[in-house]
C-alpha cells in the first residue's frame, strides 16, 4: 500500500465533502474537507497538500483566490477547480492561472477520481483507481 495522497477539498456545500471524503479514500487519498475558505487558507498556509480541489464560486473568498494562494505558497501542488456550467469563462481563466484541471457540476464521484488520478500520475503517484469501482465503473 503506497502512502496516502494528501488532498484538501474545499466546497461550501457540506454534502460534497461528506460524500467525497470516503469516496476518495477508497482510491488511497487522505482527504481534509473544508466548507469555509478562510479556514482552508489558514490550513494551506501551514501544510502542503499535493492536491487541492476547490469550488470556484463561494460567498466571501472565491476559488480563484484560493488558486492564486496555492500557486504562490506550494507551486508543486495541483489545483483542481469545480465550476458550474455557467462559468466556463471562469474555468478558462483558472486554467490560465495555473490550475491543473477543472470539473463541472454536477459530477459523479468517478469523474473527480479520474481527474485526481491524472494529477497523481503527474506528481509521480499511482492510485488504485480500480479499488473504487467494484461494479466496473
Amino acid at each position, binding site marked *: 500500500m503506497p502512502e496516502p495522497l494528501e488532498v484538501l477539498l474545499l466546497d461550501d456545500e457540506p*454534502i460534497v465533502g461528506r*460524500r467525497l471524503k470516503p*469516496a476518495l479514500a477508497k482510491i488511497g487519498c487522505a482527504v481534509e474537507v473544508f466548507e469555509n475558505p478562510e479556514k482552508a487558507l489558514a490550513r494551506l498556509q501551514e501544510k502542503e497538500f499535493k492536491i487541492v480541489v476547490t469550488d470556484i*464560486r463561494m*460567498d466571501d473568498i472565491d476559488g480563484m483566490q484560493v488558486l492564486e494562494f496555492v500557486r504562490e505558497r506550494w507551486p508543486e501542488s495541483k489545483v483542481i477547480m469545480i465550476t458550474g*456550467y*455557467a462559468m466556463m469563462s471562469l474555468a478558462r481563466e483558472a486554467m490560465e492561472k495555473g490550475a491543473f484541471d477543472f470539473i463541472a457540476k454536477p*459530477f*459523479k464521484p468517478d469523474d473527480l477520481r479520474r481527474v485526481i488520478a491524472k494529477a497523481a500520475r503527474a506528481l509521480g503517484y499511482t492510485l488504485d483507481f480500480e479499488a473504487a469501482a467494484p461494479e466496473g465503473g
Partner: protein
Amino acid sequence: MTSIPQNQPPAVGAGGQAERTRLAERAEGIRRALVERPRFSLRLQMYLGFLAAFILSAGVAVALVYNFHDMENKIRFLEIVNDYVMEVEQARRFEKNFLLYGSNLSDALDSVFQAEQILTRNAGELAAVMGPGWSQVMLPKLRGYQALLERLGRLQGAAGAQGGPARQDLQARVRKEGQEMVSAALALLSKEKASLSTTTRRSRQILIYSLALLLVVLVLNAYLLGIRMLGSINRFGEYANRIAAGDYTPITPSRRYRDEFTDLALAINAMIQELENREAVLIQSHKMRAVGTLTSGVAHELNNPLNNITLTAHVLQEDYAGLSDAERQEMIADVVQEAGRAKKIISNLLDFARETGSQLEPLDLPHLLQETIDLAANQIKLLGIKIQLQSSDNLPRVHGDSQQLRQVFLNLILNAIDASAKGGKIQVIVVPADEPNYVAVKVIDFGSGIPAHILPSLFDPFFTTKGRGKGTGLGLSVSQGIVAKHGGRIMVSSQAGQGATFTVVLPVTTIPAELGEGRHPEPANRAKA
C-alpha cells in the same frame, strides 16, 4: 431565502378566462350605454339650422310678395281713380262752358259717360281695394249728376232761352252735385295715396327686420354647431392625451344624445381595447425576458442541489452493500432534502413566469419587495452583490396587481444589478412619499450613474444603454406603463459616478370597497364622453 405565495393564483386560463369575460361584459355595457341614447346627429342639426334659415327667408319672401301685390293693386286703383277724376273734372269744365257760353252739353255728357265706363270697366280692381260696396259710393253720385245734366239739356231744348227759376234751381243743383262728386273722388284719391305709402313703408320694415332676424338665426346656428363640434373635439383631444399617458379607461357617455362623435367614441373604445390587449402581450413578453435573465442564475444555483444528489446517489449505488442502515437513511434524507431545495429554487420563478389574469388587491409593499428580491436572489448571489431592504413601519397598503408590480420592481432590481460592479451594493427602501396618500419605493445602486443627457430618454421605448442583444429597451417603458395604470409614476435621479436612484410612487388603498370591482384604480379625473 424563498417563500411560496400563500394564495396560489388560479390555474392558468381559469382566472384569465373569467377576467376576460368580465371585461368583455363591461365593454359591452359601455357600448350599449353609448348607443342606446336618442340619436341627434350633427348632420341633423345642420339640416335643421339651414331649414330654419330657409323657412325664415321663405316667410319673408311670401310677405314681400303679398305686400308688392297689395301695392300693385293700390297703384292700379290710384290710376283708375285718377282717370276717373280727370274725366269728371273734364265733364265739369264742359258743364261750366255750357252754363257760361251755352256750348254743347253733349261733350260734358260724353265725359260723364267715359267716367262711368272707367268705373264699370275696372269694377274688379275697385272692388279689390274698396270692397264690394264700392258701387254704392261712386256710381250713384255719377248717375245723379248725369241725370241732372240730361234734365238741364232737355230744359235747354224746351225753353231755348236764358233764365227761368226752374233752370236756376237746376243749375245750382248741378253745380253742387258736381262739386261733391269731384271732392269725394279727390278724398278717395288722397286716402289711397296715404295707404299706398303705408304699404311701401311696411315693405321696407319687413326687409330690414327680417334681415336682422336672419342674421340672428344664422349666428345662433353657427354658435350652437360650433359649441357642439369644438366641445367634442376638445374632449377627444383630452382622451387622446389620456390614452397616450397609458390610461386605458373606456370612454363613457357624457351627453343625453348620440351622434357622429358617438361613432368616434366607439371606434376609440375598440382601439383602447386593442391597445390594452397589445400592452398585455408586451408586458407578458417582457416578463418572459426577465424570466430569461433570471434563468441563468437559477441554472447555476440548481447545480448545487443537483450535484449533491448526483454524488449521493452514486455513492449509494457504489457502496450500497457496505453501508449501514443509518448511513443509507442519511443519504436518502440528503437526496430528499436537496430535491426539495431544487424545487424551491425554481418554484418562485415558475410562479412569476405563470400567465395569470390581472387581479387587484391590497398589497403589502415590503413583503412584495422581499419576494421580488428572493426572485433575483440567485443573480445577486452569482455576482456577489449585497442587497438591502429597508422599510418604514406601518406603511399603508397599495391597491394593485401583485404580478405586474413585482415585474416592475424586478426590472428595476435587475437594472441595478447590471449597473453594479461585482461585489457592489443595492438598497431598496420603502417609505411614505412626500405627497400624502402615496408610498415611494426607491431602488438605489452605486454604479457609474446615468449621464444627464440620456436621463430624459430613459423611459422611451427601445431606448437602451446595454449592448446589442442584451437589452430590448422596453423594460422601463413597460414598467412605466404598468405604474401609470396603477395611478403612480416612476422617477429617476442620478449623478455621474454616484449611482442612480429609481423611485416608484404608488397611491395607497383608500377605498377597500372597490376591491375586485374596477380593473384599474379609479383616477380622480375619470373619463367621460
